[in-house]
Structure formats: C-alpha cells, structure tokens
C-alpha cells in the first residue's frame, strides 16, 4: 500500500538527536523529521536534562525539518520542569515552517529564540 521511494516519495529524513555540553549548558540538537513516532525518544532525553543540574538547555533546531504537537508538548513539559528549578531553555534557528508553528501556537512568546547556538549560550 505504501509506495516505493521515488522522486515523488522520498524517504522521510530520519530523526537525529545529539547532546553535548558547551559553556556549561546542555546543547541538544534536533535534525530531520521529528514525527509522532519520536516523542518518547525526545521526551526522555529532555526530561533527563530537566532533572539534571544544567542551568540552561539550548535546543538547536537548525537542522530540524518537521515537528508535530506531541513533540512540541515534550519541549514545553521539559521547559516547565527546568523553570521550576530556576533553569532555562532557549531555542535556536528554527526554519520558516517550524517558526510558523511556534508562532501559530504562540510558543514564540514562551521561549527565547536565538539565531545561533553561540548567541544562546552565556557570554562568559
């Protein structure tokens, strides 16, 4: 029933999740298609960060092509948990489609959105 991959049916870009520490912050990079089947993976990693002692989580969305609302909800849940212990989360570099999603949901009012990871990290 599902068509074979072709120019009309390119395979979905696999979701990639990477994490590193930079200037004391956890930089979590999301790439590819963060679809409905990725929510457990994303939620689990973000909750680990929220329950750790990092003061800042930077979500690098530069290479993210797609995200739906369950995964946005995982981001919000982790953000709330971080805020409750005085930590913060910033978003970086969403493409036009993702930025539009953030605006439609008004999550652009909840999060600081930076142009680059460097800009999101503490200056010292």
């Amino acid at each position, binding site marked *: 029933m*599902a068509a074979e991959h072709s*120019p009309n049916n390119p395979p979905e870009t696999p979701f990639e999740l990477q994490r590193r520490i930079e200037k004391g912050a956890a930089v979590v990079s999301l790439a590819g298609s963060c679809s*409905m089947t990725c929510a457990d993976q994303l939620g689990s990693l973000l909750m680990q960060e929220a329950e750790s002692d990092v003061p800042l989580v930077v979500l690098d969305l530069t290479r993210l092509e797609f995200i739906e*609302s*369950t995964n946005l909800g995982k981001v*919000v849940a982790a953000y709330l948990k971080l805020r409750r212990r005085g930590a913060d989360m910033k978003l970086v570099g969403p493409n036009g489609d993702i930025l539009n999603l953030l605006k439609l949901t*008004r999550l652009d009012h909840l999060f600081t959105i930076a142009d680059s990871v460097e800009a999101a990290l503490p200056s010292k």
Partner: protein
Amino acid sequence: MKQVVVKNDLAAAKKPEEAILEAVRRFGYGENCTFAIKLALEEAVTNAFRHGNQKDPDKHITVRYEIDATKILIEIEDEGPGFDPGDVPDPTLPEYIDRPHGRGIMLMRAYLDTVEYIKGGCAVRLEMFRKE
C-alpha cells in the same frame, strides 16, 4: 475513496501517511502543502491513537483519502466514544499556552481549509484545496 485500516499503533500509521504524501507530491502540490498535510495527518492520527482509542492495541485507525489535482480529502476514524471538539480549549489563550498538550486541533485548523468532526467526534474530515 481509498481506505486503509491499521492497528492502533503510530508506527503502523506511518504507512498510509507515506502513501498519502506520495500522492500529494505526484499531483504536484508544493512543499508547503506537503508540510501542512503531513502535520494535519500526524495530529489527527495521534488524537485517534491517544484520545479516541486510548492507546488500546486491539483497536484500529481507519484512514480514507481521495487526492486529485484540485483537492486533498482525508478522513481519520477511531473506535473511541467520540468527543465534542467545542470542549477543547484554545491552546493559545494565556492560561493554556504552557500546557504540554492540546494544540493538535488548532494546528489542523490553521493549515487546512476544512477540519470537520463527524460521527460524533470519532472521525475527522480534513480538506485542502489547491491554491497555486
């Protein structure tokens, strides 16, 4: 309309999604439209899986679709008790903005021309007309 019935499983529901997106591209709809259809499909399927079928692996999700050069029509149906979409609060209101859930219906409505709940809320009818 073509009809595909899958188990109440998000990974299984990726297969009809793939077939629908292939048809959307084959009829020459643009990338913005493809993004919108993929988003709406995932929102509707996730709602069917979680809220309609309550994650019950013995239930099913039915996907019906009809795509041509002028219109994309999709129906997603679950086996739950139904619901009243009027009971779902606007997730962009200040008091709901930091809730982790509840954005799916609003997003479908933002991207599509028609989002209509039918069969007592057990099914949603999604429609998008060609604009370019």
